């Protein structure tokens, strides 16, 4: 126990000392963090409160829908937690710099496991916890839950976190043990395939399209019984939902059974994790040290193509872009995230292709265009999620080698802008594919298609600029492992600001789109006032895009120039 506390204390002290130097900035940071976090928190709360209040007003199926939504929420959190734990465990158990020192000292394996396990839970779970609170609070308030609901919720969350952290740890231990670490790429590929399959199963468990299409059920009772069916009785997220549902929806359920099931399984997996760790960690870690092989694939054709493509650019820009692409292609640490995001994009598009819009009670024309508008916000969110993983860390990825650039005659402005353009095109391509494909699949009007394509293009400028600018402002060159860059304070600030930016642009465009469609549906031309309103709102959206493009880059560049290394 003493060793575990010592290991954790070292981490806490490192964190404390690193922020000590920035005493003055700390207060400001706290204020910004607190207010933006509170806004986001409130937003999530209000959305869930509204949706759940609507559900609560529908007789019979309202509670069932809310219950199904609760299962979805838990299932989403469970998937996110496992994914996040796999990535974090790979770093904390195998890639962290201090492991060389720790493994040369007589620290017991069980202490290392436990110390790092707590670190994993904290690192991988805090964002999920942060965003889950308003959701659960909304449930509690809408369904007038008693204190017992909140107490049970805490009792549910703790084993839920333990279980996902243990599963993530066991998974990565086995993978690194089975595959020689010099074939890390293969491990990552395999892990990614597991993740893709996992995400697919996840989507299939939800069966969202069946809920939109009541006609596919023979009787109303059939529809209701489908809603009543648990998503899958073997998934712990369902146990979590079952444990708290009785306190929300007023029916008597075996909440105690599910709570015990969660605790016993959670603790069993933590113990199992320690057992696996003690048996295979040393071998796995030892193999991971052999990863320093120089025989990684380096395609001459790819290199030649890249060099030819970049030839028109000035020498300094060319070499920086070339270096970034090469490092990205060879750094397998980033690959699982890329594969997962690709899988999410494919599933996203697939889901649009199976939406039975024509069977919905709402007018198809209206629904198609409404959905394509929602799609615009969702697609931009997907792009921001990609950007937080790849664009935001791109400055910090210069790492301890930043001295090379800083001591060279390359202007920082050129470095930052070359990173901007590389990331912009990297984000623009999936953004446009996502928007155009889904709009075509939904038969959106040409107006909507063009508006979406132009808006997402404009927003990609802002999203990229925010990523590079915030990445430079919150740069962390001495970070122990890459995944910490995106999950830190800066990453969260970026995500909050990027999502707010996307939300504002969508809100500003909502009214013009509504007016346009109403005039089409009613076949009445737009009035002068309406036209003015459309122009003003679209102009405001444009201004917002310009600000999001210009300001973060300026801010980041200024910070980077004053940075001392």
């Amino acid at each position, binding site marked *: 126990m003493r060793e575990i506390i010592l290991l954790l204390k070292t981490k806490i002290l490192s964190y404390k000392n690193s922020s000590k130097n920035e005493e003055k900035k700390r207060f400001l940071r706290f204020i910004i963090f607190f207010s933006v976090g509170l806004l986001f928190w409130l937003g999530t709360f209000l959305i869930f409160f509204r949706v759940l209040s609507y559900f609560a007003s529908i007789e019979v199926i309202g509670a069932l829908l809310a219950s199904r939504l609760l299962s979805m929420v838990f299932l989403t959190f469970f998937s996110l937690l496992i994914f996040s734990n796999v990535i974090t465990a790979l770093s904390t158990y195998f890639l962290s710099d201090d492991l060389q020192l720790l493994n040369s000292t007589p620290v017991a394996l069980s202490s290392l496991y436990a110390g790092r396990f707590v670190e994993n839970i904290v690192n991988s779970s805090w964002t999920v916890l942060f965003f889950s609170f308003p959701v659960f609070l909304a449930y509690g308030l809408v369904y007038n839950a008693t204190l017992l609901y909140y107490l049970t919720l805490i009792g549910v969350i703790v084993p839920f976190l333990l279980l996902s952290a243990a599963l993530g740890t066991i998974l990565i231990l086995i993978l690194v043990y089975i595959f020689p670490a010099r074939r890390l790429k293969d491990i990552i590929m395999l892990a990614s395939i597991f993740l893709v399959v996992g995400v697919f199963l996840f989507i299939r468990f939800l069966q969202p399209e069946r809920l939109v299409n009541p006609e596919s059920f023979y009787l109303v009772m059939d529809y209701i019984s489908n809603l009543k069916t648990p998503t899958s009785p073997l998934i712990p997220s369902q146990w979590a939902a079952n444990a708290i549902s009785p306190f929300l929806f007023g029916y008597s359920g075996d909440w105690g059974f599910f709570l015990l099931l969660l605790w016993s399984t959670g603790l069993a997996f933590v113990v199992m994790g320690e057992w696996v760790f003690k048996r295979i960690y040393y071998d796995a870690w030892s193999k991971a040290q052999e990863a320093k092989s*120089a025989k990684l694939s380096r395609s001459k054709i790819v290199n030649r193509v890249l060099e030819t493509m970049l030839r028109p650019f000035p020498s300094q820009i060319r070499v920086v872009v070339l270096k970034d692409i*090469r490092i990205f292609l060879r750094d397998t640490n980033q690959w699982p995230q890329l594969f997962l995001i690709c899988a999410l994009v494919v599933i996203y598009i697939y889901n649009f292709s199976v939406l039975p819009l024509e069977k919905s009670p709402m007018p198809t024309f209206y629904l198609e265009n409404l959905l394509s508008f929602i799609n615009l916000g969702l697609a931009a969110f997907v792009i921001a999620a990609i950007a937080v993983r790849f664009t935001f860390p791109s400055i910090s990825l210069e790492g*301890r080698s930043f001295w*090379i650039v800083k001591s060279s005659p390359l202007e920082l402005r050129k470095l930052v802008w070359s990173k901007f353009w590389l990331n912009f095109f990297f984000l623009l391509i999936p953004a446009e594919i996502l928007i155009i494909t889904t709009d075509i699949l939904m038969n959106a009007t040409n107006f909507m298609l063009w508006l979406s394509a132009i808006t997402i293009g404009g927003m990609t400028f802002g999203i990229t600029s925010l990523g590079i600018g915030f990445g430079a402002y919150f740069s962390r060159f001495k970070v122990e492992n890459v995944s910490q860059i995106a999950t830190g304070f800066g990453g969260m600030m970026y995500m909050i600001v990027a999502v707010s930016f996307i939300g504002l642009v969508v809100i500003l465009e909502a009214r013009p789109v509504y007016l346009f469609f109403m005039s089409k549906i009613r076949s009445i031309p737009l009035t002068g006032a309406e036209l003015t309103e459309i122009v003003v709102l679209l102009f405001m959206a444009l201004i917002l895009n310009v600000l999001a493009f210009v300001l973060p880059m300026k801010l980041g560049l200024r910070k980077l120039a004053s940075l001392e290394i």
Partner: protein
Amino acid sequence: MIQLIELGKRFGNLVAVDGINLKVDSGEAFGFLGPNGAGKTTTIKMMAGLIKPTSGKVVIDGWDLAEHPNRAKKVVGFIPDRPFLYEKLTALEFLKFIAGLYNFSSNGVEGKIDYLFGLFGLTDWRNELIESFSHGMKQRLVMASAFVHQPKLIIVDEPMVGLDPKGAKLVKEVFRGFCAKGGTIFMSTHTLEIAEEVCDRIAIIQEGKIIAVGNMKELKERTGSDGKNLESVFFKLTGGEEVKRIVDALKV
């Protein structure tokens, strides 16, 4: 070639470098010595443009580093004490990258790179990823990279860290040859033997202030260490009693 004018650096309340003045001419090999924490690396980092001085200025080849950073940096090859490099690049790609950063991408660059690989014994490793290099090999690669753009001045912090005896001898020869051709070396080191062998003039810094500057003869005269080596000069200037206490304390 180098002028440090009232150069100072504070970190909060700590004065790391306290208004130092130095002048180094072209073709000179200049040694910068001092105990741990004396301000050597801070001075070197200010000269390389990695940190901003709190006061004073750095002038390199006639260019004020604060006003014309890129013109000044263009003539400098910098070698840090710890060779953090882009691990996922090959040695060849890294040198090409450095050449590109300095806008040195003419047709002659390939030949220059080949020459440097040969000189620093890295020819067989040119297509290997840097992550597979030992510390000493990385140090050799950094040195090769410092010469790739044909600098007029080499600023080097602890050149011998991680080098084997063969590598250390090679570096001494390379530095001597560079100065013989008119190049300037500004070197911070703890290895007094290297400073004695390579440097024309030496400055000793302690607690952020320069306490002595001159060639070996001048320093020996000043400390009354005639006939003795640089080590005794160094201890006389910086306080050898402390070392004696440490040695006594370590005795079992």
